[in-house]
Every structure is written in structure tokens, then in C-alpha cells.
């Protein structure tokens, strides 16, 4: 029971991070391997505000999100758009995007190492126990989970109930046809990419309240987010949330019962099963 709730709390935060990546990969069609660095940067932001002036991470996200949005928008327009333009096929764009975002990811790590040093950083925010059905949980985890649920819900409503959201989903289905019905694909893609970065950075700020991060942990989060996105189906927010919760529970299960060092192995187990059995994603339909 305890495992399921802890896993659910972790999965909620994973869902937010993976939704950010899904916006970037599903909608803007850029496989962003520098996603984890955005997350760590968001975490650094929360850490810095908390230790320097005791600003709560829940308020920090209102600073982190616009900053991450602007930065990711710039990255898309300056660095990635030329690749989208020159790519002759989807495959070539994929290879170029992978190499470029790897480059950005390393540059990000390098810059953060230079700014903050290689130390682990953690701070203690709302580290009080709360009781729930006879078990104790950290209040910071519960708060992060609640914030993640709120944000995921807001994103979901935006994507499925608003005109802009519908345009973004149209791009995810077919960028070429989206142009034919009068959607400004280049500018909307840039905004979807930026929004994805902002969501991930907020996820990072929330995660930093209960996990220890350092400049080079980003890649682990990138991997987990990628696995979640693939499991849930590219461009599918509901699938992403389901997959994130599954991963959160499985990881907690493995960490509690076998060894805390095996969390990535657990994620890989799920990944392999999905690749072999349902490569189109948990809720996805098989392509014809």
C-alpha cells in the first residue's frame, strides 16, 4: 500500500516532466535530449531562491516558467529551426536533432558545472511527515504531486478544450496538412517547444524539493522521460500520465524491495516489454 502511494506521488511528478518532453517531441517534432538539463536548471533556480531568500519553490515556478519558456523559444528559433528547414526527410531531422540536442545537453552541463560546481545540492522544504491511511509520507512530495496534478490538468484542458490546443494537436498529427487549414506551423511549433521546456523546468523545481540533484543528473531524467513518452505513445498526454504513474510505482517497488540502485534497470524492463509488445504505446493504435 505504502509502495503504491509513494509510487503514485513520484509518478505524478514524472508525468509533468514527461508531458514537457512530449510537447517538444510530439508537437514540435524535436527529440530534445537536453530536456533533463532544463529540469536541473529549474531545480537550481528553486534551490537558489530558497537558500538565498527563503522563497518557496511553489512561488519560484512563476519565475522559472517564463524564463524557461523564453530560453527554450530562443533555442528553437536560433538553433533548431535551421535544422527543420534544411532537413529533407523526417529521418534526417531526427538524426540532426539528436546530435544537436546532445550538444546542447553537454553545453548545459558544462555551463552549470562552471556556475554552480559539481556538488550535489538539496535543501529542506516542507520536510514534515503527513499521515495517510496509517502510513507516513513527506509533505514536500505530497505538495509536489498536487502541483503536478494541477498543472497536468490545466495542460490537458488547454490541449483538448481550446483552439490553440487543437492547432497544436493538429501539428502533432500532420504538420503538412496543418498548414493547409491555416495554422502557422513554424511559430506554433516554436511556442509548443518553449511551453514544453517551461513545463519541464517547473517539474525540475518541484522535484528539487524532495530529490537531490547535481549538474550532471539531467541525463537520467531525460532517459526516464523518454521511456515514459514512448510507453504512453508519442503525442498522447493521457498515455504519458498513465505510463508515468506505472513507472513511479514500479521504481518505488524495486527500490524498496530489491535495491535502490536498480531504478533505471526497472525503467528498462518496462521499456523492453513495451518495445517488444506494444511499440505504438500503451493507448496508441497500431499504424496501418
Amino acid at each position, binding site marked *: 500500500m505504502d509502495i503504491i502511494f509513494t509510487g503514485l506521488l513520484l509518478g505524478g511528478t514524472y508525468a509533468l516532466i514527461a508531458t514537457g518532453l512530449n510537447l517538444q517531441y510530439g508537437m514540435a517534432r524535436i*527529440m530534445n*535530449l537536453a530536456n533533463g538539463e532544463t529540469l536541473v536548471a529549474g531545480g537550481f533556480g528553486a534551490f537558489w531562491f530558497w537558500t538565498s531568500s527563503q522563497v518557496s519553490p511553489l512561488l519560484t515556478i512563476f519565475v522559472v516558467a517564463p524564463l524557461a519558456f523564453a530560453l527554450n523559444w530562443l533555442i528553437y528559433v536560433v*538553433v533548431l529551426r*535551421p*535544422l527543420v528547414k534544411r532537413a529533407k526527410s523526417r*529521418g534526417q531531422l*531526427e*538524426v*540532426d536533432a*539528436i*546530435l*544537436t540536442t*546532445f*550538444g*546542447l*545537453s*553537454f*553545453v*548545459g*552541463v*558544462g*555551463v552549470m*558545472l*562552471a556556475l554552480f560546481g*559539481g556538488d550535489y545540492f538539496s535543501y529542506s522544504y516542507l520536510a514534515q511527515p503527513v499521515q495517510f491511511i496509517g502510513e507516513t509520507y513527506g509533505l514536500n512530495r505530497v505538495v509536489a504531486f498536487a502541483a503536478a496534478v494541477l498543472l497536468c490538468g490545466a495542460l490537458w484542458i488547454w490541449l483538448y478544450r481550446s483552439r490553440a490546443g487543437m492547432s497544436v494537436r493538429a501539428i502533432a498529427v500532420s504538420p503538412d496538412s496543418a498548414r493547409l487549414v491555416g495554422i502557422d506551423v513554424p511559430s506554433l511549433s516554436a511556442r509548443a517547444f518553449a511551453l514544453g521546456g517551461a513545463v519541464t523546468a517547473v517539474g525540475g523545481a518541484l522535484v528539487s524539493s524532495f530529490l537531490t540533484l547535481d549538474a*550532471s543528473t539531467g*541525463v*537520467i531524467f531525460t*532517459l526516464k522521460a*523518454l*521511456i515514459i513518452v*514512448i510507453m504512453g505513445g508519442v503525442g498522447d498526454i493521457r498515455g504519458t500520465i498513465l505510463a508515468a504513474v506505472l513507472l513511479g510505482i514500479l521504481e518505488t517497488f524495486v527500490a524498496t524491495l*530489491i*535495491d535502490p*540502485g*536498480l*531504478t*533505471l*534497470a526497472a*525503467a*528498462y524492463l518496462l*521499456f*523492453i516489454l513495451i*518495445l*517488444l509488445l506494444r*511499440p505504438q504505446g500503451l493507448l496508441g493504435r497500431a499504424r496501418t
Partner: protein
Amino acid sequence: MTARDRRGVTIGVLLFALAALLPLASDSYFLSIGVTIAMYTALATSWALFSGPTHYISLATAAFFGIGTYTTGIGIEYMPYWLTLPIAAVIGAVLAALVGVATLRLSGVYFVIFTLGLAELVRQIITWGQNVSGAKGLYVLTSITEEHIYWQLTGLSALVFLAGFLIWRSRLGFAVRILGDDEEVARHSGIHTARVKVLLFMIPGAVAAVTGAILAPRYVYIEPAIAFTPMLSFQVVIMALLGGTGRLWGPVVGVIPFTFLWEAISGTFPNQTTLLLGLSFLVIVYLLPRGFVGLIEEARGRVSRRGAFA
């Protein structure tokens, strides 16, 4: 064999013979750089054999390398050193085949993601195994010297070149070239694309494992953090792409300058190596999409065109 092939083989044999003489003529500093260059030549050239024509970016080098290191580390207790090398090759090839069967039927992104975490996955499992069994690290104590390691790695590189040359002329090589141009066309002309990719991916798997096995005596003490360095995978990718994967000799052209650059940067600014890796990726994508090979061939084309006018 055409006249051009024969010339290429002759030049190759002469260069390898020359490279084998290095330990006789140099001090230990250059020998250690020589070992690094020979190691990356084997890794990057075998990497390009698979990733060049197929455009699948493999980041599994560190995983295979670490497995090779561990094969020698564990095997040396029970058998002579020489036997551990072929065993490492077989284990590397089998693991590559398994990874390939799981991921190579699907789009390239899945493959990249899977290989990205593979080294970390194997490292976690070995660490866990050590925690359970109570063992910590392994000692590899042999009488193998730096010269021996250098010669073995040079020999391995020569084998990789030979394999690349033979594959290029075989049915498999022909199939891979078609597949690289257009997978759809390849499938329609009766090429079993998944099988071709898996077969080809076994080569870098085996080579990286043997490279790890050869270098095990150099480390003396082996533990997961030493054997599985994720940086290794990225360095190999950068070197191969920097040189260019369009030609068999392309990766070497990237290995040699990058090794010296890496030595210089990590010597003077040890904290900025990740930044260097990142910038190298960006340089490759934006300025050198076909690597040095592309530059050389462009220059050559310009010269011969000018010759035609004169």
C-alpha cells in the same frame, strides 16, 4: 580487386606497419597517446561500419567496452589472458544481437534511447551483483606491458579495417548501402532489413568488448565506475562523425586530431571537457555534416575541376 582497391590496401598495410613501429621509437608519453589513438581507431571505425550507412546513432560503446573489461577481469582468474579476448568478443556480439533484435525493427529514436542508457543499466546490475555477493572491485595483475597493449590494439584496428573492406565488397555490404539510401527500396528488393542491421551491429559490439578486454590489464583495478564511463560512447560518436563515416578511413581522420585536442583541454581545463563535447556536436551538425572526409573530397573535386579547365 581493382587497381584502386590494390592501391588502397597497399597504403593501408604500409601505414599499419609504420604504426606498429611506434613503441620502438618513442618515449612513454607518446606511447600512451598512441594507445589512446589505437583504441579510438578500433572503436570509431567499427562504430562507423554500422552507424555510417544505417544512420542509427549507437551510444552503446561504453556498455560493450565495460563488459569486455569485466570479462577479462573475471576470466583471468580461471584461464590464460589470451582466451578472454575471444570470449569477450562473443559476449559483446551476443549482447549487441539482443539489443538489435529488440530495437532495430523500430525507428532510429528507440535505438538511440535504448543504447543511451545501456551502459548505466549494465553498471547498475553489476554494482547490484557486487553488493549482493559482497565483492568490491577486481584486480587484473599481469605481466602485459604498455607496448603489448599498443600492438594488440593496432592489430585489432587492422582487423576492423580488413573486416570493413571485405564487408564493403560482399553481398551484406551491398545490402547495407541500399538500406542506407532508402529502407523502403531495400525491403521491396527482398533485403531482410532487420537481419542486416542486427548482423552489422554485432561488429561494433564485439570490437568494443575486445577493446575493453585488451585494456583491462592497463587499469589493474577494475570497478564499475571505471569500466563504464558514459563519456566514452560520446567521444567515439564525435570522433567518427568528425572524421566522416562515408569512407572506411574517415573515422581515423577524426580520431587523431580529437585525441590531441582532448588531451590538451583535459590537461589545462579539466572541468570543461563536457563543454568541449557539447560544442563538438554542434560544430559537426552545423559546419561539418560530412566530416573531414567531406571537406577533403570537396577540395579534391575543386582541384580536379580546375585541372580539367587548364
